[in-house]
């Protein structure tokens, strides 16, 4: 693995910046595997998800020509399946939700444009199974009663092919599609995008925020969670003035303290700031949370922390720079 010099110069010196430079970036650099990818923990199998988050985190921190980047991009390209998708782990031979994430992470690399186009094509061709008319009818007849409240005719994306639509994979697919240059998008991408946005709004919990995608079960409202709320809001930034976005942002700011995990805190900070909201002074400090459990050695959490504490939001696209 090539050693790259720490590049902290352009970042304003502050406690957060020092934390990123002295703890997070060295951790990520040291965790890169020989094959160019990153595992969920240092020394673990390279995975598409962990590699994608790390590449996004390093995008604003390293020179984009660095060997660390190139090796990461090469890993992702090598992990792509012939149908254009990415599996969630190396040995699998079927695509997954990680396809959206890998496509997003590779967007910044000129050599990977064919791979990205293949990934986006797969994403746009992948339909969840529960959304077909026949499947909806069978489910209605079989259950006899409406167990869940959502409108299953609204389609998003699932975690794995031919399963149901869920909030997070749908939001990540929306972000990947919205960041791709128009000429790279397959035919029908806009239709998928509109349908998916409608699906996410339909799945919002009463009172704002999202959980994995069950706003009501047996008539009981589901509780929102931070991570699905963040990805839903980030995927819906072009509708920032909608009431659903407003109340969900309020839910996020109000409930931060209830979710004492660094992953939730980092992503909430990204989201609130992407919407131009003040980060609450009372919110937990990521540096303090790191001192508690070392983020349990999680590569994605360290990557999200870099993204949260970086003043740059270029990885979120133009809309993220507000």
């Amino acid at each position, binding site marked *: 693995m090539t050693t790259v010099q720490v590049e902290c110069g352009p970042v304003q010196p502050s406690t957060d910046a020092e934390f990123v430079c002295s703890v997070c970036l060295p951790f990520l650099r040291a965790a890169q595997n020989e094959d160019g990818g990153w595992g*969920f923990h240092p020394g673990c199998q390279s995975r598409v998800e*962990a590699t994608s988050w790390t590449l996004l985190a390093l995008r604003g921190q390293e020179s984009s020509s660095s060997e660390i980047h190139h090796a990461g991009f090469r890993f992702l390209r090598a992990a792509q399946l012939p149908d254009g998708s990415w599996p969630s782990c190396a040995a699998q031979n079927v695509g997954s939700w990680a396809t959206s994430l890998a496509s997003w992470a590779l967007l910044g690399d000129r050599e990977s444009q064919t791979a990205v186009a293949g990934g986006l094509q797969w994403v746009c061709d992948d339909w969840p199974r529960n959304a077909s008319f026949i499947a909806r009818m069978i489910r209605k007849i079989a259950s006899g009663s409406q167990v869940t409240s959502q409108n299953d005719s609204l389609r998003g994306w699932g*975690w*794995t092919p031919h399963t149901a639509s*869920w909030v997070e994979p749908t939001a990540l697919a929306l972000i990947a599609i919205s960041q791709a240059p128009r000429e790279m998008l397959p035919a029908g991408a806009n239709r998928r995008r509109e349908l998916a946005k409608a699906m996410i709004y339909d799945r919002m919990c009463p009172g704002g925020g999202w959980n*994995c995608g069950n706003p009501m079960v047996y008539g009981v409202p589901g509780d929102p969670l931070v991570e699905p709320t963040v990805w839903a809001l980030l995927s819906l930034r072009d509708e920032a003035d909608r009431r659903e976005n407003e109340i969900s942002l309020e839910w996020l700011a109000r409930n931060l303290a209830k979710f004492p995990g660094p992953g939730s805190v980092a992503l909430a900070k990204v989201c609130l700031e992407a919407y131009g909201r003040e980060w609450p002074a009372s919110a937990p400090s990521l540096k303090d949370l790191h001192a508690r459990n070392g983020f349990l050695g*999680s590569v994605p959490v360290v990557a999200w922390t870099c993204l949260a504490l970086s003043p740059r939001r270029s990885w979120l696209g133009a809309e993220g720079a507000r």
Partner: protein
Amino acid sequence: MQTPENALLPPFQRPPSQVAIRRVASYEQDLFDLIYETLSEFLDYGKASEGQHNEKAIPAASLPRDLARIRGKTVLLKPNFVGLDPLGAVNTHPAVVAAARESFLKLGAAQVLIGDGPALDRDTEAIVESVRLREYTGPLQRTFVDLNIDDVERVPLKTRASRLNELYLPKTVLRADFVVSMPKLKTHHWAGVTLSLKNMFGIVPGGCYGWPKNVLHWAGIDNSILDINAAVRPDFAIVDGINGMEGNGPIQGTPKRSDVLVFGNDPVAVDATCCRIMGLAPEKVKYLAGAGTLLGHLKTEKIEQLGESVASVRTPFAVLKEFNRLLEPCRQKSN
């Protein structure tokens, strides 16, 4: 992790299983003493009954792995950590997990890990912090494993009850020498009850299958439970029934105290016993009925009861109307 000493066998080829019910008034009680004593009782029982089974009728391969084998080995405790739990009825209580960990260490285990892969929220650290596990076990870095993002290995499914054929499962689980399922005593709005077998859903990694692990639902919850438990045979179960959940469980139900811990060397027998404590008929729970044919004992005559009797701790649990069929016959008449 299919091992010869814990093979899939029909009930008539399996020796009887042992289940212990212990009354516990509160999580503040000295749980270490109680759990250590109970595990020691299993150990002694195993030694006393050694060689008593008819070797011709019961192949050695069918004998459950006994606690004596944990000496110098790695034990994995698999609690049920779900999420925020203001009423203490959703997650396995950390006092029970910590006391079990200390007990297995005292019994000679070289290492006792705690691992779970929550199904709905990927911020596992937020969950274990909200559960207050660190307060009971100390620093989590070397003790707790997030099974959602562990390294994985492909495991072909021999039972093929579902259409899954194979699963990618965490190496920490596959390499553990002794796996202990530690669920909460709860009803479940899709499966009827969630106990030590359903708790094993938590080993299926979200990093491969997402949050929730929807592929298991599409493959059929009951059949997936059978496939997972046949692939990774939990060796022991400790059920936290001190404060559980009835009605619309496993998250949105009503807290229900039974004031018991249930232990056993056969998770099927433990779950069957828990159903009887809840006033439910285990043979009517679809996945338990299936498990009773290959994985363990469902029938009372094949379960050697230690500690309290079921009748003395019986605490009928309310169920959603969709699961009225699970009620014991005497409850159906009065319903």
